[in-house]
């Protein structure tokens, strides 16, 4: 089972997302899907989210790698998303999700 399909199963059946699709862009697997509710209170409405699956390791993440994700999503959707989500998979099957924004965002009230 690839990382992307693990993330897909997790999103579909633990987090109840719909329309979860795996896109293969050259050697990168990108997942897209629609969450049951909007993910952030600043969002106007619920939207398609882009997720990058990653195995947890000691490797360092570079800015150019992140840049590459944004441009690959641009190829896929014709649009640079305001934010993407990175899904970090651990060897005990925990998946933690983090937002990565394209540029600066306004802080919002907790």
């Amino acid at each position, binding site marked *: 089972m690839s990382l992307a399909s693990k993330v897909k199963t*997790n999103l579909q059946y633990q987090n109840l997302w*719909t329309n979860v699709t795996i896109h293969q862009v050259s050697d990168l697997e990108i997942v897209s899907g629609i969450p049951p509710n909007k993910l952030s*209170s600043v969002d106007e409405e619920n939207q398609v989210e882009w997720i990058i699956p990653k195995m947890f390791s000691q490797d360092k993440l570079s800015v150019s790698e992140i840049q590459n994700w944004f441009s690959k999503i641009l190829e896929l959707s014709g649009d640079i998303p305001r934010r993407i989500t990175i899904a970090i998979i*651990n060897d*005990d*099957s925990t998946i933690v999700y983090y937002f990565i924004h394209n540029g600066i965002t306004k802080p919002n009230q907790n």
Partner: protein
Amino acid sequence: MVKRFKKSFIAPIPITISTQIYGLLPNIYPHNPISWIHFFVKYLWIYFKPIPQRSISNLSVVFEDNLFKVLNKQHQERLWDYGFFGKGTLSRSELNWYSSTQKRLHLGDDNFELSNEEITKFRREERVKFKKERTKEQELELKKRKNEISESELQELDEIKKTLIKFRKNNKLKIKQERQVPIEYKDMRPEDQEIIDEESMTLQEIEYLQLSAVETFYLKLIDVIDVFEADQLTLEDVFYKCCGTKTPKPDNQFILSYIAYHHYRSLGWCVRNGIKFGCDYILYKKGPPFSHAEHGILIITEANPKSWTEMQTVSRVIGSVRKNLVLNFIDVPTPNELNEILNDSDDQKFFRLLQLYKVNEILYKRWIPNRTRD
């Protein structure tokens, strides 16, 4: 709300000890000779009884797809009840995806027990409601300050303030569960239709218990599991699979993680992964159902020190969830020392390997001079 306390603490590792089956040994009162006799009689009685653990067969673990999976229901339960090993692949910790999905789709019997995930979900929903009211309040307050507020809006503001006070005071959860009509197959999400049999309306089990590398090696080392790939794997096979190489270096990531894991497990802690808090492990006194984890563990070696920024970051995250940060310094042997032991052919060598590493701990805590006076 039905809070689940049905689980009681059984044992820290999946080993059944004699006193668990035959009863505890009686107390000895030094001045009372009868208590001595009572003790020895009971001791001998237990001594000559069969050892319960011997009659329990090893739990089976499958190595597939680079993961350690436990598929047998009873084995999953035993690993969870005895020391909280493993994690349900679609649950936060304990396997409860199947029952919560059944509940979500109203399949099978109504189950009034709430899982941790459902309680969290309910709390979040309450928080969303609170935030909505608060935004409304802030908008009206702004209007009031600008003197643009109407009579009816003023009344609304008062109402909202009252509800907000109620929200803030109310920290007890009141979850109402209602018996609901079953959802028809055609009304289900296509994702759910895929895993439900339309004829019998039974749900397919797609979750299993996954053991991490350190858990698997620990359980194999204390000889309570059998690991199968095509054939059964030996302790040595499991070791090299976990290391990810046949020639591990002394600072191999798995070995370092294992040293810390074994250290705390042998001190009686329930050790779970700390990825959610940005550290290596979190330690529970007994296990997740009983209390929150008290300590976060960060592994540091001489070759791979942490910068002050990294330490600050982890320390603040751990502090904000009211845990202590424990820095775990591991002294690593030389490659020769390690290879010498790995070249031995007996299984006891892994205990000698553990002795090569030394662990030192430091509790790292933020001190705020004008707040932490005591």
